[in-house]
């Protein structure tokens, strides 16, 4: 089963948040939505869970009972304990009794939260609270799992726990889609979608995205065209969309960060030329 969006437009007043966006989220795969601030990641996910109705296009998603959702906020109730939060989420999705007890125990163990089962959510660290939110989103084994920046503000160790949970959900057959600003994390996803200003710049597996990247990226101390360059560590990288870089400049193999920045610059230049 494949979920997703087909040719979706979303506007908030005069602002177009999504432009003709098509994204497929197959069962058993983790899809990462990447992009900068205001790229449209959250709008895409909220459209997918039908919290935002599109102006045009199709949303392919199961019923609410088969969706698990972690919003950009904490995703849990501060005044409830870890166990009470999970019991509430389980009850809402129809998981009760022994099945809920068993599921809760397993999830807390996977998330490393067993020792904090009776602790109030408000007393958890940021990372622990995000993991609790993920546990609540997957307590009913949803067909479609939608997570809005689950790892933002989470320490590296907790991120490992989070990824293990997502991988297990995908392995169990869930279609998993998550937004992230961490590009190293996106590279681990089976499929990634790069958004900029509501446009899909590119999508596919990391290898496919790299293989299909047009033009070249060069390394330099000072940019030939500053508007097409960006800082990477102590040097600058510069994008040549038509591959016409001067021979004296060393060409680098672009990683995902280079690809996202380069394609964003190209889209903005294109939009500026049209305007």
């Amino acid at each position, binding site marked *: 089963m494949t979920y997703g969006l087909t040719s979706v437009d979303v506007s908030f007043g005069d602002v177009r948040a999504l432009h003709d966006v098509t994204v497929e989220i197959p069962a058993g795969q983790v899809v990462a939505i990447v992009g900068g601030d205001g790229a449209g990641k959250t709008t895409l996910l909220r459209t997918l869970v039908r919290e935002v109705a599109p102006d045009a296009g199709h949303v392919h998603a199961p019923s609410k009972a088969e969706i698990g959702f972690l919003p*950009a906020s904490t995703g849990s109730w501060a005044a409830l304990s870890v166990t009470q939060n999970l019991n509430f989420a389980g009850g809402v999705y129809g998981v009760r009794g022994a099945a809920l007890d068993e599921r809760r125990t397993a999830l807390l163990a996977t998330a490393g939260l067993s020792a904090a089962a009776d602790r109030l959510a408000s007393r958890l660290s940021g990372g622990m609270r995000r993991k609790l939110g993920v546990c609540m989103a997957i307590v009913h084994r949803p067909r479609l799992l939608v997570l809005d920046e689950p790892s933002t503000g989470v320490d590296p160790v907790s991120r490992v726990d989070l990824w293990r949970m997502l991988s297990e959900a995908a392995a169990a057959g869930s279609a998993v889609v998550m937004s992230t600003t961490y590009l190293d994390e996106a590279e681990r996803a089976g499929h990634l979608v790069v958004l900029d200003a509501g446009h899909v710049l590119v999508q596919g597996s990391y290898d496919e995205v790299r293989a299909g990247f047009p033009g070249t990226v060069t390394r330099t101390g000072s940019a030939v065209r500053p508007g097409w360059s960006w800082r990477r560590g102590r040097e600058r990288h510069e994008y040549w969309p038509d591959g016409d870089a001067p021979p004296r400049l060393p060409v680098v193999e672009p990683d995902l960060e280079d690809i996202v920045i380069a394609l964003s610059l190209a889209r903005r230049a294109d939009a500026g030329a049209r305007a």
Partner: protein
Amino acid sequence: MIIKEFRELVRDHRTLALLVALPLLLLVVFGYAANFSVDSVDTAVVGPEAEQVAGTVPGFFDVSTTEPSEAEDHARDLLRDDVVDVALVTGGSGAQALVDGSNLFAAQSAVAALETSGQDTSIEVLYNPDLKTSWVMVPAIIGLILTFIGTIITSIGLVREREAGTLEQLAVMPIGPSTVILGKVTPYFLLAALDMAVITVLGMLLFDVPFNGHVLTFALGAVLFLLVVLGIGIFISTISQTAGQAIQVAFFVLLPQILLSGMIFPLEAMAAGVRWIGYLLPLTYFTMVSQGVMLRGAPITALWLPLLVLAVMAMVVFTAATLRFRRDLAPERKVKSRPRSTDRSRSGA
């Protein structure tokens, strides 16, 4: 720093409104409404000499009912049903004045006027013989507490969901908006009902306030009133993004209820230009019911008007508020056009 503060303040419309509206409100209230002295009291005169007595009573007694064929029992009924504040019973050895003590300021003024009239009239104050303030205030304070819980506590409880982002989560869960509203409001409803019962019993125990009427009539009034104030609380939550904003708006709702509902200043003593505001406030009608039932033992037939007003208010306010709250849980927009053909040309795959 001062310029920054002013810039922030200019963008905080609610605080600005509070700064401007509050002094105006207080000025109007204390200028036109803060008046304890009653200029006239509604009066009935019954008994064989009713016509004669009605023509001779001082102007302070505004005679609205003159019934020569009726006797003392009917006069008591008129007071119990809050038709008049004073009933003069004629015939027999001398005139008898029955005064409704549940209308404290009117009763105090009436007793003073009767005592200084120089006429040989026996005075009997009903329902609050010692004209105790606590007897009149406790039934009104029950309403004030319900208003407090219904508006401030409920609106904060709902806004907290919005602030924490969990309202968004509830909207995505497989539970309908009605279930969410019911689940959120029921605990406050039950807590307010419990609070009401505790305050009523404590008021009776501590201040010897009587409960002369039927509990069910009181309960009906309380439930209708609770639905109104809960509706106001839900409504406030739909127009507030933070708990601070909710408290500001609730304060605007609460203050007029305290000052203009007749709880502190008698409605009949207010200037007409302000009094009409009091008749728009739900606490005014709940106080009529609670004082009527507790002090006068008024039956439901005598309280049909305030109960009807509360019922209409409950229906309108609660329905409007829940519809607005449902909108918060619904998708942000409608689909405006049909799906277009799929374009996957930008796929990197």
